[in-house]
């Protein structure tokens, strides 16, 4: 006997010839890699033929292999369609892995420190190839995941799948929903921009209302009374370590329970009070290999393709200005999936609506399978529970609407209007005042009063009239003083209004029309109002836009405009009188300004 390297293979070659030995070697390797399927078995499987070997080799990967050991080897045909699962559980799992992969890629460029985090965001966007796509995908995936998991829960409720024996499966699912919410929420803070800081500040402040331990919980979460370096680090560790660890543990438990009990059948497919999910008749069996495997691979491709398309053309993750604890932005809200709590908070007591109510709601959900113990899963027998389900959906929707910034939070009209015109890009929207192309920002002072005159006058005549009026009643002077107070350079102050150059600057014209339109919509709070846009040069390629609102002061008490018997607002008069001896209303003025650089391209 000679001692050769790879004796078995060389012996094979000697014995069977080279070609046969190689093919058998490949066959052997494939069978080991797939934990049971050789080349011929795979070929048969993917051709849709029945297995030619006995025992069925397609079951061995489930029995012997690691990757499929938890996947069932066959499904009931009744649960492989769109109904009743809507594939929501599969999609939830998909997003768990999708978020893990994109998240790990983003971690490579992220440092959880208030000094660095925002700069890292800019680096990801400006200096990491495909960085923007990864961030968009991770963010969009997170939003989808929360929605999909919530819908998965509602589907389980509606088909009654939480009933015996799946009560504990439901409970672990609810835990996964809560973990998903907190995962998404903790990720919200990491970019360290204004959006994240204030959404999380609002969200985290709810914890504070808890009696006795509220302060401690809050301190533990934020690491300091204010969100800062410690808070960011804690949220980061929650996001990348603690919550994913919990998620994977309960994900394992949840799926294990699903497999143990079998996928629950459509309610009408089994007798009342019975659970036949595990007893799949031979003619109803859909085997994982090859049918479910090819389905899942196809969905994997399709879902990833759709997310890619969405992130290329339709969705970009928002990034606002650097977080600033000193500047509270107008209209701050919690993330959309916590809006319902924010809405509930507007109903009254902070502890009850912010802490007790969500706890009761989640507790009720957790106890649902133990409270609803009726045996039937048929829709006709579950009218009460289905009504509760639709009530839950409606109440959550209404509360979420109430959570929006525009509901029951009043800001003075002029602030609101100017903000509406000038707000910085957020959630794919931007104040229309920023979208004027740079070459249309023609230096000058423009008045919305120009819109109120009839067409039979030429623009120049209208402007002459407006100028004469504003000079006589001192309102122009008041505006100039306001501009000076706001640090407009002395050489830049306008001398008079000029007609809006509609031909050269159609967008400017449209913005002024929108400005006038908004102002006219508030005749009670802003009587005799006019607005002005003053455009000045600041540097090469940099313009300054001052938005001015001037109106007669009205009596406001408790945030409400006080009306007289005719329904007109009650004006506030000054000590002075006009030429005819009538008192003059106090004239109020408000302004805000922004700078626009020609490279900023808000209109793209």
């Amino acid at each position, binding site marked *: 006997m000679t001692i050769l390297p790879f004796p078995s293979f060389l012996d094979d070659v000697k014995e069977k010839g080279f070609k046969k030995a190689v093919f058998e070697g490949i066959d052997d390797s494939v069978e080991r890699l797939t934990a049971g399927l050789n080349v011929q078995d795979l070929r048969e499987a993917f051709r849709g033929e029945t297995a030619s070997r006995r025992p069925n080799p397609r079951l061995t990967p489930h029995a012997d292999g690691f990757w499929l050991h938890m996947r069932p080897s066959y499904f009931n045909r009744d649960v492989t369609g769109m109904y009743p699962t809507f594939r929501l559980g599969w999609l939830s799992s998909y997003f768990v892995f999708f978020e893990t992969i994109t998240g790990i890629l983003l971690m490579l460029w992220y440092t959880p420190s208030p000094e660095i985090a*925002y700069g890292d965001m800019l680096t990801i966007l*400006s*200096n990491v*190839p495909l960085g923007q796509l990864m961030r968009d995908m991770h963010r969009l995936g997170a939003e989808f995941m929360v929605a999909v998991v919530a819908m998965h829960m509602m589907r389980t409720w509606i088909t009654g799948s939480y009933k015996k024996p799946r009560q504990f499966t439901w409970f672990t699912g609810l835990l996964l929903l809560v973990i998903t919410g907190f995962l998404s929420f903790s990720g919200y803070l990491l970019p360290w921009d204004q959006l994240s800081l204030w959404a999380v500040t609002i969200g985290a402040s709810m914890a504070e209302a808890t009696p006795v331990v509220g302060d401690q919980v809050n301190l533990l979460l934020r690491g300091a009374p204010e969100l800062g370096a410690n808070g960011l680090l804690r949220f980061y560790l929650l996001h990348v370590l603690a919550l994913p660890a919990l998620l994977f543990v309960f994900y394992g438990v949840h799926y294990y329970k699903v497999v143990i009990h079998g996928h629950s059948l459509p309610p009408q497919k089994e007798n009342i009070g019975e659970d036949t999910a595990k007893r799949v008749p031979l003619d109803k069996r859909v085997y994982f290999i*090859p049918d479910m495997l090819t389905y899942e691979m196809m969905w994997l491709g399709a879902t990833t393709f759709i997310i890619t398309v969405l992130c290329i053309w339709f969705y970009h993750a928002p990034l606002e200005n650097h977080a600033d*604890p000193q500047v509270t932005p107008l209209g701050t809200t919690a993330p959309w999936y916590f809006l319902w709590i924010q809405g509930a908070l507007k109903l009254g007591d902070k502890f009850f609506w912010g802490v007790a109510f969500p706890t009761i709601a989640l507790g009720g959900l957790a106890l649902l399978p133990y409270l609803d113990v009726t045996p039937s899963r048929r829709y006709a027998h579950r009218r009460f529970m289905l009504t509760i389900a639709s009530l839950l959906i409606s109440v959550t929707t209404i509360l979420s609407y109430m959570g929006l910034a525009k509901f029951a939070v009043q800001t003075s009209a*002029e602030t609101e209007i100017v903000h509406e015109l000038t707000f910085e890009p957020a959630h794919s929207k931007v104040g229309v005042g920023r979208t004027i192309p740079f070459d249309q920002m023609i230096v000058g002072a423009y008045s919305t009063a120009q819109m109120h005159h009839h067409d039979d006058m030429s623009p120049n005549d209208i402007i002459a009239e407006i100028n004469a009026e504003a000079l006589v009643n001192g309102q122009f002077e008041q505006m100039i003083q306001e501009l000076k107070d706001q640090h407009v350079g002395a050489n830049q102050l306008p001398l008079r209004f000029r007609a809006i150059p509609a031909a050269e600057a159609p967008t400017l014209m449209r913005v002024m029309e929108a400005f006038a339109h908004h102002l006219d919509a508030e005749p009670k709070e802003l009587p005799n109002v006019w607005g002005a846009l003053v455009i000045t040069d600041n*540097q090469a390629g940099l313009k300054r836009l001052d938005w001015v609102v001037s109106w007669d002061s009205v009596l406001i008490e408790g945030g409400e405009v006080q009306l007289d018997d005719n329904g007109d607002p009650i004006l506030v008069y000054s000590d002075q009188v006009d030429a005819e001896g009538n008192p003059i209303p106090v004239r109020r003025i408000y302004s805000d300004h922004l700078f626009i650089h020609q490279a900023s391209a808000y209109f793209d």
Partner: protein
Amino acid sequence: MNILFIKSIEGRILAGITMFVGMMILVGWVAINEEARMQSFVRQHTGRSIERGAELFASLCSECHGEEGYGAGDRAPGLNNPHLFGFDPVGLQTAAITNANRALVRLNKEIDRLLAELTDAQNPPPEERQSEILAEIAMLEAQVEEQDIAINAAVAERIAVLETLDTAVENGLFPLWDTVVDIEQTGDNEVEVFFNSNGTRLAQVGWAGDLHGYVVTTLIHGRPGSARVYPNSTGMAAWSQTAGGPLRQDQIEDLAAYILNWDKGDNWTTEDFIAVAQYGKPLADGSLPSEPPPPPAGDNVAGILQRWELEEVVGSAVSGEMLYDQEFGCTDCHRAGASAPDTIGTTTRIRNERLTLPQFAGYTIEQYIVESITRPGDYVVEGYSSGLMPVNFGLRMTDQQLADIVAYLLTQE
């Protein structure tokens, strides 16, 4: 929806492969466009950084450095300033004079050569050549005259520039004057001597780094000695949080981006140099620098109340309401009691609920309100979050504004 459930295995495999390939093509397409996208993002971000810097400059810097960066009197130097960006008007004129002088030497040599040829006794040029030489000499003399004019203009401009700078010297406002060489020995124009060795600002202050580093460093640490040079100012403060100021590093960078955006590169002119209040000149229109703004109220409650008494500060509820609603936006939160206590009923609640608490023993309502505004973190009403109310209101309002707001709140029974 059942199209998602393709019945045949081949169909599913085909659809799956198509989707994967499609996705890879899309990602590849994005990847080859990344370079351009990243560049345009950088441009866009630079633009927005300049915008934020402009906002900071208008609110924090324009008071002393001027709205258009031309400086304000004897309070701070102009930053929209050719000298800062390396434009040296004295050096420019010197170079112009040197060049013209060189040309003159060349022209005079040429004329001498022609004259020598014309007057050569041994070998007199023929008649034709003589008139040719005379014509050439006339042409060269015209050029000499041109150069003379150029020299005179450059000299005049140089004198003009030096004179503006002389004024600064007379005012004793020339920064780092001690570094100028000993003028007694040379008898030269002292400013000229100074500029010959300190053509640009960075050379003048002996800064070895680049301009961006110079600006950022100044913003971070301030200019500890500048109150001596600009006697009417409080001196350049340290603006960065790292040095105890209010600004974050990204804001410092925004401000630097805005300041550096004044650079005109090769297009600076001597007029630009003279227009800027570089060394404590009066403003361009001859006016004096404006009064510095009144100091903020701060957060020393006892001190504020004491000042009010001493200076007889009386608040106006009308003006207070305006400040409360508009300027400082208090009603954004103090409304309906959801995120902060309601404005209505302020004094009633303070009298009946807060001042009965042990820690407020001996407080007046006024004192409670002042403390709540200037030091909101010291006590937060039960049921509301701490940390929501900005802590810097005391720094944002003057004594009078604070008094107005207190007067307004006292009317809220």
